[in-house]
C-alpha cells in the first residue's frame, strides 16, 4: 500500500500486517466486506492530490494573501462583529491542547478544567446582564434569538413574538428560518425617524397572544433604546421581555436584568475572539430564575465529591437531547466552549474597571467621529439619539460608493445599510452608512478619515489616491 503525503497515521507497514493478522483479516480491503459492492467506491475521490505540511501552509498563505483583512486597514466596520483588541493572554490559554482538543465534559472527574471555566463564564454573563442564570454559550446571537423565541412561546403558551426592526437583520432572518414550522410567528415593529424602536407601534402590536417583545441594545443602527419602557409594554400584556444586548456595552450601560428583562441574548465575539469573517463567534443566553429549566444548551453547576471536595458538573441535563431525545428543549449540543473560554480570559484581563474604562473610551471616540462626520456638508444623522460605539449617517451619495472610494486610501468607511434593505421593507437605505469606532481607532486616524470623506464628497468623481 502506498503512503499518502500526509495522513497523521503512525503505523508502519509491519504494524499494519501485525494488526491484520491479529484480527484475522487477509487484507485492508477485507475489513470492508460488509459494504455491498454496489456502493463500494473503487476509484479515488476526485480531489486534488495530497500535499506536505509545508505545501499546505504555502497554499493557505496564498489564499490568505488574496484577502485584505480589515485589521490591516483603518476599519470602521461593525454591524455585529467588532475589531477590539484581544490581549495576548487569550491565545496563550485557548491554545493549550487540554482545552482546545477536549470533548464536551461528560467525565467530570477528568474535566474539571473546562467545567470550572464554564462556571466562571456563566458567572461573568450573569454579572454583565444582571440575570440569574446563564447557559454555557450558544453558536451565535442569531440562533440564540431563535431559541429565545421558542423558549418564550413554550413558557407563555402564546403564538407570536413582537420583534423590533432594530434587532440585527441577520438575527431576524435566522429567527424567521429556524422557527418557521414550530415557533411563534414573528411580527416586526418599525423604527422611528431617529432609528430607535417605535414603542407606540410596539404597544399596538402587543396583545394577549404575544409571547415576548424583543429589543436590541444598542440597536442595529447604534441607537440606545428605552429598555425600561419596552419592558413595561411587554409586561403589561403578560409577555416576556427579551433583550439582544451587546455585552461589551455593559461596562457602561445598565444591566438589562435591572431594567426588566426576562431573557437576554447576544453576541460576545468581541470578547477574546477574532472576527474570523463572522464565525465562529459566541452567542450567549441568560434568563431569570423562573425560566431556568427552560434554557437550552449546557449548564454547569457546583457540587461536592464523595469526600466533600468542591467540584463542577454538567447539570439539569434532563433538558438536553442526549437524555430527553425528542422531549428536549433544543437539539443544541455545542456551546462554543473554546470561544466562551476566550471571552472569559479577556473579561478576566479587563476586570471590572477595565470593562467600564473600555466602554467609556469607545463611547467617547464614537462621539468624536460622529460629531466630525455630521459637520461635513450633506451628511445628516440617521441615528438621532444617544449611541454607544456605532451610529448611522445619511450621506449625499450611496454608502457603498464611499466605501469603495476610500479603500485605496486605507479606510474601511463602514457598512452600507443598503445591503440589508430587504429586511427593512420600504426604508430608503441607499445613502445610509453604519460606522463603528472601537478603542483601536486613534484620533489621527479619525481625522485623516474625516478629511478623506470630505474630499470624496467634495468631488466624488476625482481620484484621491
Amino acid at each position, binding site marked *: 500500500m502506498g503512503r499518502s503525503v500526509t495522513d497523521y497515521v503512525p503505523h508502519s507497514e509491519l504494524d499494519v500486517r501485525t494488526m491484520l493478522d491479529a484480527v484475522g483479516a487477509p487484507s485492508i480491503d477485507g475489513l470492508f466486506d460488509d459494504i455491498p459492492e454496489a*456502493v463500494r467506491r473503487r476509484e479515488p475521490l476526485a480531489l486534488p492530490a495530497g500535499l506536505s505540511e509545508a505545501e499546505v501552509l504555502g497554499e493557505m498563505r496564498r489564499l490568505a494573501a488574496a484577502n485584505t483583512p480589515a485589521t490591516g486597514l483603518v476599519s470602521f466596520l461593525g454591524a455585529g462583529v467588532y475589531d477590539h483588541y484581544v490581549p495576548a493572554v487569550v491565545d496563550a490559554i485557548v491554545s493549550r491542547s487540554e482545552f482546545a482538543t477536549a470533548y464536551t465534559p461528560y467525565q467530570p472527574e477528568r*474535566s474539571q478544567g473546562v467545567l*470550572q471555566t464554564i462556571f466562571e463564564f456563566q458567572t461573568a454573563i450573569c454579572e454583565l446582564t444582571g440575570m440569574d442564570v446563564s447557559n454555557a454559550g450558544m453558536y451565535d446571537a442569531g440562533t440564540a434569538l431563535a431559541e429565545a423565541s421558542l423558549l418564550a412561546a413554550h413558557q407563555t403558551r402564546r403564538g407570536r413574538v413582537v420583534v423590533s426592526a432594530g434587532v440585527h437583520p441577520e438575527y431576524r432572518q435566522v429567527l424567521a428560518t429556524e422557527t418557521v414550522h414550530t415557533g411563534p410567528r414573528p411580527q416586526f415593529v418599525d423604527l422611528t425617524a431617529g432609528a430607535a424602536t417605535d414603542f407606540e407601534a410596539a404597544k399596538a402590536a402587543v396583545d394577549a397572544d404575544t409571547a415576548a417583545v424583543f429589543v436590541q441594545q444598542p440597536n442595529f443602527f447604534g441607537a440606545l433604546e428605552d429598555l425600561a419602557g419596552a419592558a413595561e409594554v411587554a409586561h403589561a400584556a403578560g409577555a416576556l421581555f427579551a433583550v439582544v444586548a451587546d455585552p461589551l456595552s455593559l461596562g457602561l450601560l445598565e444591566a438589562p436584568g435591572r431594567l426588566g428583562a426576562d431573557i437576554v441574548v447576544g453576541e460576545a465575539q468581541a470578547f477574546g475572539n477574532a472576527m474570523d469573517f463572522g464565525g465562529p463567534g459566541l452567542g450567549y443566553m441568560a434568563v431569570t430564575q423562573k425560566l431556568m429549566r427552560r434554557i437550552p444548551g449546557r449548564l454547569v453547576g457546583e457540587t461536592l465529591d464523595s469526600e466533600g471536595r468542591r467540584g463542577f458538573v454538567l447539570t439539569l441535563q434532563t433538558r438536553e437531547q442526549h437524555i430527553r431525545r425528542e422531549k428536549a428543549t433544543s437539539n443544541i449540543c455545542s456551546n462554543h466552549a473554546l470561544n466562551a473560554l476566550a471571552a472569559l480570559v479577556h473579561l478576566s484581563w479587563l476586570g471590572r474597571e477595565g470593562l467600564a474604562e473600555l466602554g467609556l473610551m469607545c463611547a467617547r471616540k464614537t462621539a468624536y467621529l460622529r460629531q466630525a462626520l455630521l459637520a461635513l456638508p450633506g451628511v445628516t444623522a440617521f441615528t438621532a439619539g444617544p449611541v454607544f460605539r456605532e451610529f448611522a449617517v445619511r450621506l449625499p451619495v450611496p454608502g457603498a460608493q464611499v466605501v469603495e472610494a476610500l479603500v485605496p486610501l486605507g479606510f474601511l468607511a463602514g457598512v452600507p445599510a443598503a445591503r440589508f434593505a430587504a429586511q427593512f421593507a420600504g426604508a430608503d437605505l441607499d445613502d445610509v452608512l453604519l460606522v463603528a469606532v472601537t478603542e483601536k481607532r486613534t484620533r489621527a486616524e479619525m481625522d485623516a478619515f474625516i478629511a478623506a470623506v470630505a474630499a470624496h464628497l467634495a468631488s466624488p468623481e476625482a481620484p484621491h489616491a
Partner: protein
Amino acid sequence: MPSADRRTIYEKSCCGRRAYSLPASDVPQIPLDELVPAGLHRACPARLPEVGELDLLRHFTELSTLNFGVESGSYPLGSCTMKYNPKINEVVGRLEGFAGLHPYQPESLVQGALELMYELEQWLAEIAGLARVTLQPAAGAHGELTGLLIMRAAHHAQRRDPKRIIIPDTAHGTNPASVIMAGYEPVAVTSDPRGGVDLEALKALLDDDLAGLMLTNPNTLGVFDENITEIARLVHEAGGLLYYDGANSNAVLGISRPGDMGFDVVHFNTHKTFSTPHGGGGPGAGPIAVRDTLAPFLPVPLVGKAEDGRFFFDDDRPQSIGKVRTFYGNFGVLIRAAAYIRGLGPDGLRRVSEMAVLNANYVMEGIKDLYDVPFERRCMHEFVASAAPLKEHGVRALDVAKRLLDYGVHPPTTYFPLLVDEALMIEPTETESREDLERLIEALRAVAAEAVTDPEMLREAPLSMPVRRLDEAAAARHPVLHQRFPEDGESCA
C-alpha cells in the same frame, strides 16, 4: 494530585488589582452623562475579577492541567472521533489574512476567503457524492435541523406536507430533537439481529405521511447496514427523502459515499471527520451536502464563481429556506477542515478510514473475550462492547469508565446506544499508535480483572483524579450555576 479546594477566579480577585492596559485617551473627555442618558447608565459595576496578568495565567494554566485532551492520552470516545488535531491547522487558522476578516468587507477584498469556501464546498460535495454544499450550519445538530428544513421545503414545493421522519432506535439523541425543531414527528424503527434497520419493521412504517428517514451508516453500533440500497429504494418509493447523519463518516471516506448509497442530504461534523478541534464543546461546523434537486432550497448565501474567475456571494436564490446562522458559518473552523482535506488528498482520506477501521477491530479483538460484543461481525471505525458480564460482580459500565481514568485513558462513551445493555462505545481513531491501542486493551482487561478481585474499589473509582465521584443529583436538586458573592443581596449603591 493536591486535594485542596479549588478557588474560582472571582475568589482570587482582589480590589484594585489589574491586568489590563488601554491606550491613553486622545479625544475630548466628554462626561459620561452627556454620552449616556441617566436611566441607562450602569448603577452597579459587573463584578468581574481583579487579578494581575500572571495570576490570571496561573489560574487558567492550573485549570488546563485538570483537563484531558487528545494530546494527553488515548481518547476512544465512541461517535466523537477524537483524532489528532494537526498543529498546522492552528497555524493557518490564525493567519491574519483569514482571522482579521470582517464579514461585511467588500467582496473584492475577500477573494481568498471566498475561493477557500468555494473549493471546500466542491470537496465536501465530492466526498459526500452529492451536488452542492452549504457551509453555514455551526455544528452537526445544526446541520440536521438545516437538512430537515430543506427536506420540508422540497416537499412543500411539490405541494406535499408529510409529517413523519423515521429514525432507528440506535440513533444519536440529536436526531429526534432536530426532528421536533423542524416541526416533524419522529417514529422509531427497530434494529434487526445484525444491528441494521429491520426491513420488515421499516416497510410497516411506510405510508403517505412519510417525509423521510434519518440514518447513520455505519450506525452507532459500528456496523454498516448492508441493506442500504434497499432501504433507500423503499423510502424513495414511498415519497420520502434520506438524511445521512455524518457523525460516523470517518469509517467510509473514499470507500463508500452517502450519495451513492442513496442519501439525499448529508451533514459532516468537521470536528470529527476533518480534524478540527472539539474545543471542550465547540466551536465545530456542520456543513451539509444535498442532491441537485434539493440545491435550490439551501440557505443563502452560497459562494459562486463568475465567468471572469471572480468569486461572489450568491444571495439570489428565491427558493432558499433563508439563513440558519449569521454571516457565513464557522469560517475559522472551516479553514482548518480545508487545510486537512488539502493535505490528505484522496489517498490520505481513504487511508484514514482504512486505519480507523483496522484500529477499532484490533481493540475489539483484544477485549471480546472479557466484554460482550453483541454483534458477531467485523466492526467499522467503532464498536459497542457491553460490560454486562461484570454485573454479577456488581460492577457497571460507569464503574469501568471511571476506573479507566486511573489508567490514564479517557473512557469510551457509556450507556449509548440505548439498545445495548451497559454499553461501552469505543472509537480509537486512526491516529493512535499500536502501542497506545495495546495500552487501551490492557487497561480494559485490567479493569475487567479488577471487577472480579476488587469490585468495591471499582465502584469508588477514580482514585487518582483531582476529585472523586461528584454528586450530580445534589447539583441538579439545588442548582448553583454561578459564583456566590459575599455581598449578594446587598445593594452596590
